[in-house]
């Protein structure tokens, strides 16, 4: 359970990190929090020849909240987002979701950019980013490009990020004020990988009807799944347990989760419906209180 030998670089700025990444190419691996990469290296499932440790690049660690957007640097750690009062004020979903990630020891080191780039379909951040319509800025020696979650997540642990790119910034739009959020997940033990996770947002109009709603599931496919079919029928209606239950029944026909040692496909579908109902109801209740 010891990693194989590697060469270690810890650049002090982004420019140097990108130069090293360009130089070593596929032999190199970027290390941010290391909470997924180091276990894989310890078990020798990953044997990178070169580690480019970006932990000293302080310019990549920040949280900026403006009127319309939350900007988070790729190296910002989970606990920093979890404990940010400003983020809790404008986007409580993130605060709720961060607490579901691993344990406090993991959140001390793990980074927002690292978790997104790792792209585990059962992880909380990819699901939250997809629900919230986040955009990611990727830097390479040639410049920067910005991609949507739809463009970014390709399949299990696979994204559109190029060999010479680093995720430097995450932009999350702040929605209208009367929006309630919720996230919840089914795990075998607290802090384990989720079997199924669900996140929802519900925005209410002045008259109490649903102006917009979104539902995103994790653990059912290689990427987070936005289920517009479920939520579009709810628009213009007054939220109720019956409406949400009825809308969620069709999830069984919309997802085809793969079975594994932990849960059959059928059981996962059941969990999807249960958790989708739960988060939509909670989001609607919270929106009504705003």
């Amino acid at each position: 359970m010891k990693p194989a030998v590697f060469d270690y670089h810890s650049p002090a700025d982004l420019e140097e990190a990108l130069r090293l990444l360009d130089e070593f190419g596929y032999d190199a691996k970027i290390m941010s929090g290391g909470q997924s990469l180091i276990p894989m290296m310890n078990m020798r499932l990953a044997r990178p020849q070169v580690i480019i440790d970006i932990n000293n690049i302080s310019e990549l660690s920040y949280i900026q909240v403006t009127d319309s957007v939350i900007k988070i640097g790729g190296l910002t750690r989970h606990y920093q987002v979890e404990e940010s009062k400003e983020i809790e004020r404008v986007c409580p979903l993130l605060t709720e979701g961060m607490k579901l990630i691993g344990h406090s020891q993991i959140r001390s080191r793990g980074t927002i950019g690292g978790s997104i780039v790792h792209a585990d379909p059962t992880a909380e951040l990819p699901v939250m980013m997809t629900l919230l319509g986040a955009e990611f800025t990727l830097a390479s020696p040639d410049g920067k490009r910005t991609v949507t979650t739809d463009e970014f997540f390709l399949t299990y642990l696979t994204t559109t990020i190029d060999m010479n790119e680093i995720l430097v910034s995450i932009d999350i739009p702040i929605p209208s004020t009367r929006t309630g959020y919720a996230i919840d997940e089914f795990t075998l033990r607290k802090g384990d990988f989720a079997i199924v996770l669900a996140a929802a947002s519900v925005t209410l109009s002045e008259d109490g009807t649903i102006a917009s709603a979104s539902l995103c599931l994790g653990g059912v496919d290689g990427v987070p799944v936005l289920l517009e079919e479920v939520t579009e029928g709810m628009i213009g209606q007054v939220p109720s347990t019956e409406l949400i239950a009825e809308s969620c029944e069709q999830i069984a026909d919309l997802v085809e989760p793969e079975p594994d040692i932990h849960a059959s496909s059928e059981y996962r579908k059941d969990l999807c419906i249960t958790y989708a109902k739960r988060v939509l109801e909670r989001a609607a209740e919270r929106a009504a209180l705003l």
Partner: protein
Amino acid sequence: MTQSNSKEITLTVNGKQYTTSVEPRMLLSDVLRDELGLTGTHVGCEHGICGACTITMDGRPVRSCLVFGVQANQAEIRTVEGLAEPDGSLHPLQEAFWEKHGLQCGFCTPGVLMSACHFLEQNPNPSREEIREGISGNLCRCTGYQNIVDAVEMAAEMLNKNKKSEEETSDLEIVHSGRKVEV
């Protein structure tokens, strides 16, 4: 790839500064145990599940098997050896684990203590549910957690009592790390 690519690091562990040369692939848990001789930090699963190797790094709990030694350069580390006073008197958490039988084999205990120590600093008056959440990153295969939760609850009371006593300095007793000494 070079054969020997060791790097020199300087880190502070329990208030004492150490400088040592480590290979980049050496985990912080192994640096503490094998290079610095601080074997109180236990190594269980080595992939971030069991929590036995939990220490605090710059004031935050981390799994020392998921940090490389080179990454701890200039860091402030606290391990289980840093809990008791230099004269050997126990930290309230250690006393409470003793009192409440919060361990059996003791393998997970250093990690549990370090997690609980940080947790109680953040939340001095936790509910039992919050304590369970606070130690959820540590696996114990002996106790079923009941006595661990009891011990953390007792430690919280002791720490709060100590804090109160320290404020009431007129009292004719000295409270030292949870142990009351009549004078």
